[in-house]
């Protein structure tokens, strides 16, 4: 059991510390940083999916007035490490995916850089490419581990026997699409070399992790790389690891000594250069008895990875934990294709992986005549079915009940296609959410007394919209016994103590625990009346209980859907989520995180789909006009609530992480509601109108 903080400011809802800067547009994001007389970089991309560069003719570009340098595989410096093939900019003449960067122009102005990039002539000896994902491929392989370090396959009991003995069974295949993270701020780097040190103003989820990766690739001591990111325009995983533009910006700045360079990816370039969520194919098999008790849960997930770098989405992992069943099996298989490198996207694994199973559960509940809420409650496990460990806390049932109550579920007529209003068919649906409690070791924080009763707390954490500026100050205030307004945070800079990446909803757990440790160390050393300038640091404490418990957040999402009887148009007039996420640090910000996740889940359910043209190997709809994300009109009503949850095991704040769970289960709830509205069962996302046309 951890030493829980006594909440004073924790649980309050101060507005965002960075609010005024953001509403006035004076908050500096990576592209807003003032550097004197910058040059601009524009990238040239390969237009075939596989081949060998035979010529990169830069003469016309170079001849343009204002062009300072053109980097190509022929002239770029060798990198110290090419272990990460995604980051090996200009290190070989091989083209491994369409959109790979083959040249970069550095010029005096944006306009000249863009013009010159169009003048670079690229010859590629094209080779046959293979970008076709299918569960029938004979070269699917099992990765050693899946993302997050989980086992690739698991098996308990015997699903064959389990299915044979189940009066109700289901065997269906579900698919989720290729999704691009698309934070509103394109990935941007402002790079500058000074006396052999590299300064990067970067749109990143982790300043220290960016420093470490960049230093490794460039062969620098990590201290020589300085990364600054006070404000980040969203990331959703795509800014969680370094992508190639960072390396290119560093090389470009090196090519024009003394001149800072700015490299902003275009929205179109983001579809091939900064990761994405793999499409998934999920075969789900379930079996249950007449009372709806599951005997079998089996999920076989297929995804894609890039030929040059493996990323294994942990799609089947959530199914290991959500419902009890004696016979279980999960597998992950990958196709290595000539595609851009997939990576993290908000709730990797859980988000796609709770689509198939949660629709399947709805189907099976209907098959055995049970209410889908009740069906889920009946399959609540006593311990984590995967590990056999007790849950540190688990309140899925409470979320389902509370959600059903708030949503008005009890009046629901289970018959599909039974209600219509002014030409729209109406329905409701439910699905469960889950997300693990992640903690990433390796953070350090410093507390310093700046004036009597005033404290400066430093940690290299970042705020990607999650509210770090505010919530860490709240945690520090409680840990120090100070007022919220007496704590000033310093984050978003490698000049602060090292912090882990903002990923896996681990920020508050990891950084918060570290800040608490530093505050406690500070009080232990200096007491309640420290001298000005008193300073103490501490690293994130070892996790002493994590091994004993399974730690997960849970939730239940309810959706109302209407489908136009003539046109099949799908709308979601109402979404309601109830979550069990431990203690909530700042309800105002937490609610934003949860509704933000649910809104992105709605967007995934109805709209999002990166369309791969297999002939070329690229995403055709690579902009915001064609890759639709939900607009304001698509999202009339989203509510997020939480149940009181006291978990003394997770960390001193008792939190579980809220950044990702909101997107988990939303699409299934909507698909289930669409079925209730229309009687049409859609197993492939997105739920576009063509599924419902008659």
């Amino acid at each position, binding site marked *: 059991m951890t030493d829980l903080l006594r909440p004073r400011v924790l649980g309050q809802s101060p507005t965002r510390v960075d609010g005024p800067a953001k509403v006035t547009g004076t908050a500096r994001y990576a592209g807003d940083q003032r550097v004197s007389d910058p040059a601009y970089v524009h990238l040239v*991309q390969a*237009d075939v999916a596989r081949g060998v560069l035979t010529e990169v003719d830069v003469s016309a570009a170079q001849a343009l007035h204002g062009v300072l340098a053109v980097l190509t595989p022929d002239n770029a410096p060798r990198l110290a490490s090419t272990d990460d093939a995604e980051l090996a900019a200009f290190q070989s003449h091989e083209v491994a995916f369409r959109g790979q960067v083959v040249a970069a122009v550095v010029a005096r102005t944006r*306009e000249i850089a*863009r*013009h010159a990039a*169009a003048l670079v002539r690229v010859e590629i000896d094209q080779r046959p490419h293979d970008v076709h994902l299918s569960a029938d491929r004979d070269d699917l392989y099992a990765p050693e581990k899946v993302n997050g370090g989980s086992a690739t396959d698991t098996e308990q009991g015997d699903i064959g026997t389990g299915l044979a003995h189940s009066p109700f069974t289901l065997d269906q295949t579900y698919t989720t699409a290729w999704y691009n993270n698309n934070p509103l701020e394109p990935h941007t780097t402002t790079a500058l070399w000074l006396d052999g040190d590299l300064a990067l103003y970067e749109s990143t989820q982790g300043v220290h992790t960016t420093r470490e990766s960049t230093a490794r690739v460039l062969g620098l001591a990590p201290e020589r790389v300085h990364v600054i990111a006070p404000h980040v325009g969203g990331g959703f995983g795509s800014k969680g690891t370094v992508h190639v533009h960072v390396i290119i910006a560093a090389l470009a700045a090196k090519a024009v000594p003394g001149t800072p360079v700015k490299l902003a990816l275009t929205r179109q370039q983001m579809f091939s250069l900064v990761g994405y969520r793999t499409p998934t194919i999920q075969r789900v098999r379930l079996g249950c008895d007449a009372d709806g008790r599951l005997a079998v849960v089996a999920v076989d997930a297929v995804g894609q990875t890039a030929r040059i770098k493996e990323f294994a989405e942990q799609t089947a992992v959530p199914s290991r934990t959500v419902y009890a069943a004696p016979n279980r099996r999960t597998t992950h298989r990958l196709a290595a294709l000539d595609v851009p490198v997939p990576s993290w996207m908000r709730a990797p694994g859980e988000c796609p992986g709770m689509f198939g199973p949660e629709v399947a559960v709805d189907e099976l509940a209907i098959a055995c005549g049970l209410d889908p809420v009740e069906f889920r409650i009946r399959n609540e496990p006593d311990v984590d079915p995967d590990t056999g460990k007790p849950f540190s806390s688990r309140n899925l049932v409470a979320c389902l009940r509370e959600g059903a109550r708030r949503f008005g579920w009890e009046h629901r007529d289970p018959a599909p296609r039974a209600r219509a209003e002014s*030409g729209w068919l109406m329905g409701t649906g439910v699905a469960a959410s889950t997300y693990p409690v992640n903690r990433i070791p390796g953070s350090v924080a410093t507390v310093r007394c700046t004036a009597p009763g005033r404290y400066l707390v430093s940690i290299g954490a970042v705020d990607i919209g999650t509210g770090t500026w505010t919530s860490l100050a709240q945690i520090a205030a409680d840990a120090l016994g100070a007022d919220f307004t007496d704590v000033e945070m310093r984050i978003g800079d490698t000049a602060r103590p090292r912090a882990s990446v903002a990923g896996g909803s681990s920020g508050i757990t990891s950084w918060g625990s570290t800040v608490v440790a530093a505050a406690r160390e500070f009080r232990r050393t200096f007491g309640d009346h420290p001298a000005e300038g008193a300073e103490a640091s501490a690293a994130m404490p070892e996790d002493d209980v994590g091994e004993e418990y399974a730690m997960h957040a849970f939730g239940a999402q309810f959706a109302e859907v209407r489908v136009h009887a*003539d*046109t*099949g*148009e799908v*709308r979601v007039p109402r979404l309601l989520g109830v979550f069990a996420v431990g203690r909530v640090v700042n309800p105002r910000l937490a609610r934003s995180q949860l509704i933000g996740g649910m809104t992105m889940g709605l967007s995934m359910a*109805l*709209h999002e789909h990166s*369309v791969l*043209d297999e*002939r*070329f190997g*690229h995403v*055709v*709809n*690579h902009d915001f*006009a*064609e890759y*639709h994300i*939900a*607009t*304001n*009109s*698509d999202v009339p009503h989203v509510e997020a609530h939480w149940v009181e949850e006291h978990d003394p095991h997770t960390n001193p704040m008792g939190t579980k992480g809220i950044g990702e769970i909101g997107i988990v289960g939303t699409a299934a709830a909507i698909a289930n509601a669409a079925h209730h509205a229309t009687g049409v069962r859609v197993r492939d996302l997105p739920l*576009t*109108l*063509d599924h419902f*046309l*008659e």
Partner: protein
Amino acid sequence: MIPFDYRLAPDVDGAVAAATGWGGVAFLAGGTNLVDHMKLGVAAPEVLVDISRLPLDAVEELPDGGLRIGATVRNSDLAAHPAVRRDYPVLARALLSGASGQVRNLATTGGNLLQRTRCAYFQDLSTPCNKREPGTGCSAIGGYTRQHAILGASAHCVATHPSDMAVAMAALDAQVTVLGTSGRRVIPLVELHRLPGDEPHRDTVLSPSDLITAVELPPLPEGTRSLYRKVRDRASYAFALVSVAAVLRVEDGVVRDVRIALGGVAHKPWRARRAEDVLRGSPVDGSPADEEVFRRAAEAELAGAAPLAGNGFKVPLARNTVVSALRGLSREER
């Protein structure tokens, strides 16, 4: 983007004169389509003649009850004009369902008519496209065709015209006034845009130095109703998958006048003459029995549809949307 020379057109004649004689000139109005294309490399004019400040920004009510709309009237101003809201709701709604408030505040009447297809392959220099580079092939055929045509396409191009406004204007029998080197001429809006045939690079019948100066709408007889129904992949800020502009006058339970145009289905705003023929003179009384004739009309029009792999859904979608629009109008009638 290549460097270009920017010239502010002094007056209407000066604009035409500045654009006459050679190919590298383009008129710049709101820029929301042209600048987009210049950034993408789809358009590369050497001279831009800025017509946005020309005195073509008035909407005039004509003595016969019609309307003359200047070419540089902003889409937002046109939609907000009292006469448009009162007499041509189909037009107001079409405009308001296009793009976004802050795009409509820039976009002009002339520019909206002459905006080019949103075909993703057309906009991407790295994929072949007959419209952008004649003779290179059409990437859309066999590719992603959700936004593409089901009517009037050719083996060379299957693009659609993306304008909502133009669809409403097609249903309103609008006339386009054009000033060219050889003077002024008037072109029916339905003849302004071409079908792709074997010259898909030509969107319209205009030549590069032709300046659209105005669009005129004839008056609608008393008792005429109109509406615009746009079906798209999200609730707002998206191009039409299918749209229907419908103008209907029913007298004594019989269709006296009907004009239907479809958007999102063809290389031009598609005037549904076959459907109109079926409807004209048919009894319509706002009852469920109308459904049958509406459906027959829609099916008559769509009998010639040739959907592509990947957009077959547009045929039933267009049919149902036509029926839905007519149903809406005929009930409004009561």
